[in-house]
């Protein structure tokens, strides 16, 4: 049996997790032109909260929601208390959120410890599906791939078709002018920041279902999200989808071809994209 289709599918499901995490980052950047380096913190915080709730209630869906809401609230708090006043100063926002990340890492290590935890999910989902070509494949991975695709399409249609989406797009192009037409841009900023963080939290729970949650993942997922948005193009949801699929697939193939240097090869992808197209695959020229 050929192993490559299996690796491809593994790459895609991993890419699904990356997509959910990085879509939040690219959404925030797209509207606000700031990068939140606390994105990995939202990811791990959401994951841990999702684990606690899912373990307590024995309900995976509730765990997903808990991670989503908890990270969203964390994002809202960060935005309102710390960075709202400095929103035009992208460097300062990046540094302040970095401070949040440092504190978050330390406190989460204190509360949840250094051991690996995994979000429990229902018994009836813990089965393998018999796929053509590939053979047996865990159902939960396919469910997560489906969640990511549905989520991506939903975000895309909200941005492209709804009134809120048109406000967001107008805000991206010209925030002062949007504000002048009577839109409360501040509220839009706060909502987007909270939604972006919430997506990272959701990604945390999803990732915690597939792989163990560990301290230090906040850093690595922040990094993967950054790579995805750099590769895909900052501020573009389709770009994040392409970027995360590429990063997921490349990292899985690299694991098979050169396990020691898998991480390095993943970043080589970023370097190549930057050399050819500095604004990313779907990015608009700066």
């Amino acid at each position, binding site marked *: 049996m050929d192993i490559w289709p299996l690796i491809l599918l593994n790459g895609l499901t991993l890419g699904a997790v990356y997509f959910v995490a990085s879509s939040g980052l690219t959404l925030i950047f797209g509207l606000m032109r700031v990068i939140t380096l606390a994105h990995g913190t939202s990811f791990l915080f959401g994951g841990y909260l999702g684990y606690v709730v899912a373990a307590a209630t024995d309900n995976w869906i509730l765990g997903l929601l808990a991670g989503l809401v908890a990270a969203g609230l964390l994002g809202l708090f960060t935005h309102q208390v710390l960075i709202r006043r400095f929103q035009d100063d992208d460097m300062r926002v990046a540094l302040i959120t970095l401070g949040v990340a*440092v*504190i978050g890492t*330390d406190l989460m290590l204190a509360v949840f410890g250094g051991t690996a935890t995994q979000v429990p999910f229902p018994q009836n989902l813990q089965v393998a599906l018999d796929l053509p070509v590939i053979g047996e494949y865990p159902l939960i991975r396919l469910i997560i791939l489906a969640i990511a695709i549905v989520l991506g399409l939903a975000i895309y249609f909200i941005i492209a078709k709804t009134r809120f989406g048109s406000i967001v797009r107008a805000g991206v192009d010209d925030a002062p002018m949007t504000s002048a037409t009577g839109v409360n841009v501040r509220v839009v900023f706060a909502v987007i920041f909270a939604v972006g963080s919430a997506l990272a939290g959701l990604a945390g729970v999803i990732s915690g279902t597939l792989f163990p949650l560990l301290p230090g993942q906040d850093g690595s997922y922040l990094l993967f999200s950054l790579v995805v948005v750099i590769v895909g193009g900052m501020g573009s949801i389709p770009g994040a989808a392409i970027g995360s699929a590429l990063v997921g697939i490349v990292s899985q193939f690299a694991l098979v071809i050169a396990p020691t240097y898998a991480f390095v090869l993943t970043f080589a992808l970023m370097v190549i994209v930057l050399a050819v197209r500095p604004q990313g695959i779907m990015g608009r020229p700066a």
Partner: protein
Amino acid sequence: MSTSISSTSTTPRWKAWVSAQNIVVAVVLVLAIIFPLVVDRPRFWLPNIGVRTLWMGTIAMSLVFLNKYVGLLSLAQMTFAGICSYGIGYFSVTMGWPIIPSIVLSLGIGSFAGWLTALIAVRTKAIYFMMITLALAQVFYSWASQAIEVTNARRGIAPIPRPDFGFINLNDITTFYYFALVLAVIAYVIFRYTATSQFGLAIQGIKDSPERMSALGYNVNRYRTAALTLAAFVASIGGVILVFDRNQVDPSFVSLDSTLNILVVAVVGGIGSLGGVFIGGLVFALLQNFAQDFTDRYMTLTGLVFIGVLLFFPAGLVGLGPMIRRLFSKRAKASASSESSETLDAERRAGTHNKKGQHK
């Protein structure tokens, strides 16, 4: 080639050097020199506070230089230092080379890493540059923690003994402290000299207006690359102190935490001040050593200090001086209204004979 920007100064050369900033620098230097003589327990203070401040300051200074004069925030400076440390460990311990060629070659490799990074990242700006340097730093970290044949993976290379050059024996802690101090001063002088050289003026011009400098015939990216390489070289100097301070090298040198620590040092000291980083380094070293006495969560404390500085003192601790002076000068404003402007930015004032002051 650059007659249009290297303006002539009206003050004599020696007078330009007697500025408030240089007096502060001289005082700090004297304090640093007598530091081993005045502390009660040199065996604790010299390695834990003194030397640590010096290498953190030197590495953070390369970050500040790039931010202040080139307008790029590089998060890979700690990595360049770590690459130099790894080089020294690999050549002198794994390969068994003599120490001096190992150090020289490692400084070269650290600078070369800076040049390679510049090739990748130099076309990007501001926040993109920061993310790319962060990502590249993590690439090296992951490579260093896996490449067992070169870096000995997670266990690192140890022990790396401090060299004995005969006339100076670095195993003596006081000698080692002065060795570190000399390297840090050399690093500072390199940056101060560069900032006022023709090259320094060109990169500042590029920072303010790349388009205009490009129109004047400057190859913007080549200047940025050169500045990045220089900063990587100075960071590597910090790496030399670092590796002999720890007597080993392992992936934690280049981890995300270490990278962030350097950034914290730079921001707390003052992201716009070359010398201020040593104050930031001192605060950080004190925090690292003494915060553990009353709390286990000293990283949380560090983060809080970091955010506090960003929120309330964006110019860092060195910004406090001018802030306090401005408070006092308000009283005497009637008599000396013209002088208050010079307290705004002591660091920038140092280069009164460069055009930056007039430009802003």
